[in-house]
């Protein structure tokens, strides 16, 4: 267990390092000069040089990358003209555009994605496992087919189309919900849930399809196994066999996939955030990439990478917890 976590930690550090390096490289291969953008129109040559110096982009790439890394781990003092600011670790530097501390920017937006991920995951698991079981109880029959058709249709709808349909349906035609406007849970939990309901639904309806199929396939596969025959031979009712025992066989896979999917949403659901105007990481990433805001993009990439690594580790731990035969 401890060894497993340590190994994971080392692996994570390597992955994140590679990610950061890759992001840096990509940025330098791309056209566009952040200093030029920050300096604006009518920028004179000396001014441009000054901005470059302030941003650090006049240094060689490797040197910049090194500074980025040491800043992240140790913190760094930034001097903007007369005043000096100490940015403590983990410091991701300052946005070229807004001069805000990147770490703070990320922390501001992370709750949005956490809300989005956990809420939608709860919904899609409920929906996916529920429909999967419903289909598996009578495989090949009408309700299996209908469930499959509906779920497949939903699953193949792009999330922005789903978002549009939900917005049109709930906010324009039926007018049962206001247009979503993110409210932090700390301010008003009811408002928070009400405003996030549509984004949750959008993600859940699209994602549930995978879980329906995983659950259905897992349950049907387990039902063919020898230990289920033992239960039948001891007179267990079929419903109990499916709902208690066959589901158990499907669960490890479902949970593992769910943990990884949650990691993906946490790392930024670009379409959903954009469609519903949610101030999350995905939206920030798109904006920062557009303005060549290297520190912000780098910060988001690293955070997203870290979240996905964590999600994978959690998935492995859950899998081991759910299956006594798996040891880590």
């Amino acid at each position, binding site marked *: 267990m401890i060894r497993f976590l340590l190994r994971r930690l080392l692996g994570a550090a390597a992955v994140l390092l590679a990610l950061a390096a890759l992001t840096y490289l990509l940025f330098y291969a791309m056209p566009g000069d952040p200093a030029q953008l920050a300096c604006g129109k009518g920028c004179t040559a000396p001014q441009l040089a000054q901005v470059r110096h302030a941003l650090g982009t006049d240094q060689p790439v490797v040197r910049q990358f090194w500074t980025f890394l040491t800043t992240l781990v140790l913190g760094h003092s930034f001097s903007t003209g007369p005043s000096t600011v100490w940015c403590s670790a983990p410091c991701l530097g300052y946005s070229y555009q807004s001069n805000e501390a990147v770490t703070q920017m990320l922390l501001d937006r992370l709750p949005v994605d956490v809300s989005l991920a956990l809420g939608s995951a709860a919904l899609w698991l409920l929906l996916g496992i529920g429909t999967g079981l419903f289909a598996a109880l009578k495989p090949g029959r009408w309700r299996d087919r209908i469930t499959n058709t509906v779920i497949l249709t939903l699953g193949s709808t792009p999330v922005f189309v789903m978002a549009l349909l939900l917005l049109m349906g709930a906010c324009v035609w039926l007018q049962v919900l206001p247009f979503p406007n993110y409210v932090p849970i700390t301010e008003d939990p009811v408002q928070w849930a009400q405003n996030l309901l549509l984004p949750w639904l959008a993600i859940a309806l699209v994602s549930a399809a995978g879980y329906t199929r995983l659950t259905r396939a897992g349950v049907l596969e387990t039902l063919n196994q020898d230990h289920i025959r*033992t239960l039948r031979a001891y007179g267990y009712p*079929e419903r109990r066999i499916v709902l208690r025992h066959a589901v158990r066989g499907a669960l490890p896979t479902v949970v593992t996939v769910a943990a990884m999917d949650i990691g993906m949403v946490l790392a930024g659901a670009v379409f959903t955030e954009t469609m519903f105007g949610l101030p999350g990481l995905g939206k920030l990433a798109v904006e920062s990439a557009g303005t060549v805001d290297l520190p912000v993009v780098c910060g988001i990439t690293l955070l997203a990478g870290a979240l996905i690594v964590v999600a994978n580790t959690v998935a492995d731990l859950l899998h081991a917890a759910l299956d006594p035969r798996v040891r880590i």
Partner: protein
Amino acid sequence: MTHDLVLRVEDLRVTHPGPVTALDGLSFELAAGQVLGLVGESGSGKSAAALALLGLHRGTRTRVEGGILLHRADRPVLDLNQAGDAELRTVRGPELAMVFQEPLTSLDPYRRVGAQIAAAYRLHTGASRAEARQRTAEVLDRVGIDPKRARDYPHQFSGGMRQRVLIAMALALRPRVLVADEPTTALDVTVQAQILRLLDELRQETGMALVLVSHDVGVVGGLADEVVVLRQGRAVERGATARLLGRPEHPYTQALLRAVPRLDAPLPERQAPAADDVLVETAGLRVDFGSVQALRGVDLTVRRGETLGVVGESGSGKSTLGRALVRLQDPTSGTVRFDGQDLASWRGRELRRRRHELQMVFQDPTSSLNPRRLIGDSVAEPLRVHGGRDEAKLRAEAVALLERVGLDAAHADRYPHELSGGQRQRAAIARALILRPKLVVCDEPVSALDVTTQAQVVSLLRELREEFELTLVFIAHDLAVVRSVSDRVAVMRKGEVVETLAAAELTRPQHEYTRALLDAVPRLDAVTAG
């Protein structure tokens, strides 16, 4: 012992979709405490019959006809085949319980074994958790498992122990009939003997009747009062066990009995290979898997042209030894010398050039042949790997060899699932021989096969080793089979060779472990004499 009628089966027919008749009219009566043996080869319908008794074909497309009449004191006779699902469920467990062939997979891997026994018990008795726990401890103790292990999961038990758990689960409900479908087929001889003894004791203690289904006449013979021999769904002969095994009337029963390998059968005359012409020699061979020591220093010689049998229980390291001999497993320490050279010194091109001299035939021909390739392609593949390009020639060679092992050209164009188990194993042997190897290691080559098929494959191997001048290493847990093909036999236990003796001497061993193995083999003569 009472003689109350418990179960009367009338003209039982089982038809699989197709329609394929699996069982074509089986009738028998079973009294309390009585043991009925159902014997037959695969495809004889014996398992279909066992499953039908508990109504386990329900919910599938298989059709069951006939009467399965359960007699109960003070209650009307119940026809299980006509009973509703709900009523049938009340009978499964308390009246009829079942023990399956696959102890490794018949328990829920996600639940502790104690919880599984207790759940079945509570389902039918409505007992409290504490009472169920108490009963679980009792039955576990009775089948020889420490009740403390109730909190362990199935994967923490060996196959034999898991079969005990399943028997305990049945025992908890005190069923009146126990249907045991090949209960010991997946187990070692010594474990098999223990399980059979346990079943017999429980029958005597509780007065339950036993339906014992097996392909092994020896297993059934030791326990059954009456035996029914099934062939292609029909009962070809039935009778009291001693009479049926001693003086079989039907030619099929006679053939079946003849095919059973016997430890006292005369050995064929054979020129013993020269003792000084050694083909393979291992010295201090050790193989560790993590903390598990599979082989703990094996010194063994295989003479050129001889057949060396290797016997031992599962976990004794015999498969690991076989793999090390053909360099599928690198030793942790020690050496394997082949034709005077250290196998470990073969590297790169040398290894590729000489690999064909070492071949292996595996236990399960179903999984060792690629299910998506034609038999002919699989057999010719080694030639291709070693540079064969002329497809017509490759095919001709493959077909010639298939014909040599008793198949024909038509089999070359079939897929593995279209062949029977015996035919698949013949194809696997052809594949091993196509590169004209010097050494062939056969790892349990016949243990997945019926007795008659087993006898055919064994005699095929005997013929081939002369013709191809092979040196064979024949690994098996069945002592009689090993004795019948080998010149010498090595007995393995816990990663060590405890003794090596001439095949003719196998029944007069020096080592006590070999004696224990021999004693565990079910004997037909004991039954027929008594």
